[in-house]
């Protein structure tokens, strides 16, 4: 065993030094999420009345519950922070852990760096160990920093520490998941996609299980459910974290076993010989081909998403009926069930739209990867115009998410209209179509970034991230309209409103056009692969 792990310690030190900072953005985001709840809560919701209002607003829009999970107690700072940060913070930490691990293992194999290392005095298992070590240390640092700063910002110490521990535990579990997928996938992109897919499915299932008050076991078979069951701020149970540790150990063992059986640079699935002649003869076909696998995977994901959300919509009356705050509001005549349901449909479609933008941004970033790996230069050295080449990818990045959103939207419309909750099929489909321009706007951010300033490729996610935060968190935070208007989804009209106007959609389309122009001009004028 000791020879298997030779050289791991020095390699871990250098890797920490060079790749450790890749964890920094995740630490910043999660810490911000958690500390900001604690700092801002007493200020925005000073009285118990305000807090009950928040609880009603959250209970009144179950789409929010799908993402944030159950709100056990919104009347205390720590209860509020647990609701707002636990699910999302864990999700972000897991993403960070997955990306760092895949990069340190599979990514290095793809780029040939690993070969250089493997030829040195390095045991067979050392590189995987270093990847896992990096992800574990990163997650631990994230948990510690987030919880200590939350405590210093005024959070109750036991609750803040437990919350930080759930971040770390989630990061650890998904580091282990990624360690396994890195052995299965045939390259880093596949390995990442499988791991993130697992995370996404478990995340939605958790929100779903709590929202429809499914039987207890549906929560307990879900590793993310264990995290919610720690109840930071409302119960402070540490013991579910033990399950997370056990799962991390089991998955890590599986990963090492798989790794010892596969060849360097290969996945578990060996590629077969392919055609000697090619049929793809245009940049458009090339773009489709390079993104074909993920597009198929995302199509399946959106079929599932449409079914889940559609089914969720059918039980909306029960969900609203079970919430005492909402019942009070309805009884007081402050709102009507129809208005709540229409608002719910708008929110849920915005949510689907934001998720649908992710593959769009990925397609644009894939183009940047191709460029950095010197494959774009092969294409541009032929008689292809840069603008044309870029357009092929841009069209795909806009069209695929549109298709995904429509798939999920039609499914939601079908299920909801069949359920006698007062949703009209035509209205729901129209609402889906009205959401499309907003999706384009946030994808257009990545088009501008990759075209004009690809060095800051992380900025490609700004549109998705800010829309997500503003659409889901903004309203319950009483943010000003001028701030909320930064999210293009804020401009999507509710088509069931008779006075809905389309000016907002025109404005955001103008913004989209602007981003496109910046992206195209940038790509035409800049040096390639720099």
């Amino acid at each position, binding site marked *: 065993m000791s020879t298997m792990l030779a050289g791991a310690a020095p390699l871990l030190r250098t890797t920490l030094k060079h790749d450790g900072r890749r964890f920094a953005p995740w630490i910043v985001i999660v810490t911000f999420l958690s500390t900001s709840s604690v700092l801002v809560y007493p200020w925005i919701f000073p009285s118990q009345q305000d807090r009950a209002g928040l609880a009603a607003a959250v209970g009144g829009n179950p789409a929010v519950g799908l993402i944030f999970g159950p709100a056990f107690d919104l009347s205390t700072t720590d209860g509020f922070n647990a609701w707002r940060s636990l699910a999302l913070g864990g999700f972000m930490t897991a993403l960070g852990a997955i990306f760092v691990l895949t990069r340190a293992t599979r990514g290095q194999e*793809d780029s040939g760096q690993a070969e250089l290392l493997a030829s040195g005095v390095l045991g067979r298992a050392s590189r995987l160990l270093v990847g896992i070590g990096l992800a574990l240390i990163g997650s631990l640092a994230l948990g510690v920093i987030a919880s200590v700063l939350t405590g210093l910002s005024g959070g109750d110490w036991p609750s803040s520490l437990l919350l930080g521990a759930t971040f770390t535990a989630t990061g650890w579990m998904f580091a282990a998941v990624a360690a396994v997928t890195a052995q299965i996938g045939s*390259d880093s992109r596949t390995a990442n996609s499988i791991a993130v897919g697992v995370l996404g499915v478990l995340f939605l299932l958790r929100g779903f299980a709590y929202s429809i008050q499914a039987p207890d076991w549906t929560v307990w078979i879900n590793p993310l459910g264990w995290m919610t069951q720690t109840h930071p701020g409302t119960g402070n149970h540490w013991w579910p974290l033990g399950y997370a540790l056990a799962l991390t150990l089991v998955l890590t063992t599986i990963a090492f076993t798989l790794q010892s059986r596969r060849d360097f*640079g290969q996945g578990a699935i060996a*590629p077969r*010989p*392919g*055609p*000697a*002649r*090619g*049929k*793809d*003869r*245009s*940049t458009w076909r*090339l773009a489709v*081909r*390079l993104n074909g696998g993920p597009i198929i995977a995302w199509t399946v994901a959106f079929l599932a998403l449409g079914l889940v959300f559609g089914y969720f919509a059918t039980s909306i009356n029960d969900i609203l009926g079970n919430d005492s705050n909402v019942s009070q509001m309805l009884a007081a005549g402050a709102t009507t069930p129809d208005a709540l349901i229409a608002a719910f449909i708008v929110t849920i479609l915005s949510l689907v739209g934001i998720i649908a933008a992710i593959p769009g941004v990925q397609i644009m970033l894939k183009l940047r990867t191709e460029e950095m*790996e*010197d*494959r774009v*230069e*092969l*294409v*541009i*050295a*032929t*008689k*292809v*115009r*840069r603008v044309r080449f870029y357009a092929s990818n841009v069209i795909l990045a806009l069209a695929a998410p549109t298709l995904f959103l429509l798939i999920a939207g039609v499914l939601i419309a079908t299920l909801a209209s069949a359920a006698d909750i007062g949703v009209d099929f035509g209205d729901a489909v129209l609402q889906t179509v009205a959401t499309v321009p907003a999706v384009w706007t946030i994808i257009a951010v990545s088009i501008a970034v990759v075209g004009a300033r690809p060095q800051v490729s992380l900025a490609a996610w700004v549109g998705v991230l800010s829309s997500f935060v503003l659409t889901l968190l903004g309203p319950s935070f009483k943010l000003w309209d001028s701030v909320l208007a930064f999210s293009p989804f804020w401009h999507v009209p509710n088509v069931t409103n008779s006075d809905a106007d389309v000016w907002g959609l025109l404005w955001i389309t103008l913004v989209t056009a602007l981003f496109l122009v910046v992206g195209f001009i940038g790509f035409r*004028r*800049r*040096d*390639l*692969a*720099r």
Partner: protein
Amino acid sequence: MSANAVIEIAGLVKSYGKFPALNGLDLTVDQGQVHGFLGPNGSGKSTTIRVLLGLLRADGGTVRLLGGDPWKDVVELHRRLAYVPGDVSLWPGMTGGEAIDLLGALRGGLNEKRRAELVDRFELDPTKRGRQYSKGNRQKVAIVAALASDVELLILDEPTSGLDPLMENIFLEVIAEAKQRGTTVLLSSHILAEVESLADRLSIIRDGRIVETGTLTELRGHTRTSIHAVLQRIPPEDEMDAFRDVRLDGAKLTGTVDSNRIGEAMSFLAPYGIQSLTVEPPSLESLFLRLYETDTPAAATS
């Protein structure tokens, strides 16, 4: 400069951020020529080529390619040229055959007969996927893709760096055939022998500047023949102007002579009774090495 120049670069400047990769590069390649482009690692060969392909934008100087501007007239120019990168990266999931057809189609069609013949000669298995190819085989894919099209200009960036000697010979044959068809070739390389056997002219680049350019014979003119002689009598040292770097060890003389002064040197030595004599022909290798050394001043005196 010349009326039928295919590549004309004058005073080309290109920086990466603050780092000047090219500072005032001049290069002319005439039609139908094979032009060798030599230089040490990091001297700016690939950068020059990437400017020629319109992948990078020149910061200063003028660049003409096939009578056009490589940055503006991309489509018209790229229809007429083909490129083999120094470090070939193929699409991991795409077979070599598919990559050749894709690149050929994007260039505006390829010569089917030549494609088949090249695949055959290079013993390339076109059914393997990008990530399964070895370095040399990836390079073969790029070479076949470039040479299967009928183009006027081939731009090759260290095309043989991964090929085995057998394949390198085939490559040299193929380039010679292309030259016969009238194709102009810009061939960057580290290997002098390769360039020596093919190139009509050579340019040597160092630190982003051309330090030598000319035909093989012209460059040879800059090199010196080395002479080792054992003499009967010791010649007076102050009369040996024909020689450079002379060293006398008793009656044993070693030194170098400029190519155009060999006769003079011989007549000088003859009266002192030559007992044995070795004359080493001038080698480009020595010029190459001399120019590569960073501490000596670049411009050679002639």
